């Protein structure tokens, strides 16, 4: 049942009408990579948010995104990229900008970070390309 559900979520996100209209080929590629990583968490009971952020940027020019999380939930942030990015990383910061411990995962052009907030409120997710050329990135997250 779960793999079937994952398939439908994956399919639904890929054929999302707004995504179809607005996303470039690079964004679709990056999103596919992020969904591939997030799919494994979905099989572990994590629910995938129907939303993502995508942008193109250079190596060593990280982007920071604000999220609002709830204490008690567990989160996985997943990022996918186009081929130009070789090494990527995700890190989590609290509302004062202090780095927080998270569980990292990385493979070529993809990364994830697992995090469970101690307090509800705003947090910051930094997406960084450590090695490679300018690339398109897509960030999404799952929770349970």
């Amino acid at each position, binding site marked *: 049942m779960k793999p079937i559900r994952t398939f439908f979520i994956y399919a639904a996100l890929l054929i999302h009408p707004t995504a179809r209209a607005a996303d470039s080929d690079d964004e679709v590629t990056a999103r596919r990579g992020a969904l*591939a990583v997030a799919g494994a968490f979905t099989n572990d009971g994590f629910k995938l948010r129907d939303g993502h952020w995508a942008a193109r940027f250079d190596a060593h020019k990280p982007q920071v995104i604000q999220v609002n999380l709830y204490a008690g939930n567990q989160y996985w942030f997943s990022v996918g990229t186009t081929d130009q990015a070789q090494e990527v990383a995700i890190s989590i910061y609290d509302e004062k900008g202090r780095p927080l411990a998270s569980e990292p995962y990385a493979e070529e052009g993809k990364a994830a970070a697992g995090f469970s907030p101690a307090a509800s409120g705003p947090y910051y997710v930094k997406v960084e390309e450590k090695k490679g050329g300018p690339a398109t990135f897509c960030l999404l997250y799952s929770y349970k």
Partner: protein
Amino acid sequence: MTWIQRAAICLIGAGLRAALHGEPPDAAPLSEEVLAAAIRTDQLTIPSPGELMAALNKIGKPDWTGEIRPPVPMTFSTRAQMALNLGSIVADGYIAVEAEDAQQVKNVGADILNLAKPLSVQQDIFNRGKSLTEFAEHGQWDTLKEEFECTQNEVKGAMADNKDQDLITLVTLGGWIRGTEVISHFLMKHYSEAGAKLLRQPAIVAYLSARLQESPEKVRDNPTVRQVRADLPKIQLAVSFPRDETPNLEAVKNLYKLTSALMNEISKKDAK
């Protein structure tokens, strides 16, 4: 993704809990300038009602049936008020799913379609309305949670296509106010410290207030939106307590009073 990669991720998942309270990494903190310039988007910065309910469900087993509200009128004279109510009705959908009330899910689906029509987004979510009914009839509650989130995002996507960007903020606002009203009402009846701490959401109100401020004057001057703008600072104060503090029962009651009064204004026919 190969099975080896999946297995590796599963192992990481198992190790996640162990890492949660580990030592912070040896990385430089983010500067105030970086925090201020951080990207904020409706899709990632605003949590879904499902996330809040997931957190609350871990604390206890809330009786969501008691949080279902009587039908609200569907005849509003302005698009701004319609958008606010559309957001609040999607939040009602999450409550109906948590309460596992199939009829209420169908009612909410019908209400969403009713409001979507004058907002010119009905065509985009017509099939979603049918899916909501089918999933409700088959008791597919988990799928319904995803369906409501997709419905809301498709409404917003269609609004973006129609160049109705300002309405997107109002849909989000309506959903957030209704969600906060419901959670504070529940906590008022079943107070717990862990539950009360979930009400801490200062950045959400700040984000939504800023978005509202950027809206065209025509939207900002809408009578219902004016009321929302007048009440948001009070609500922001009520959800902006320090991270190591817990709001007491009185503070929870105050938040409920503020959000329910505003929700009444939003759902009032012909607001002046």
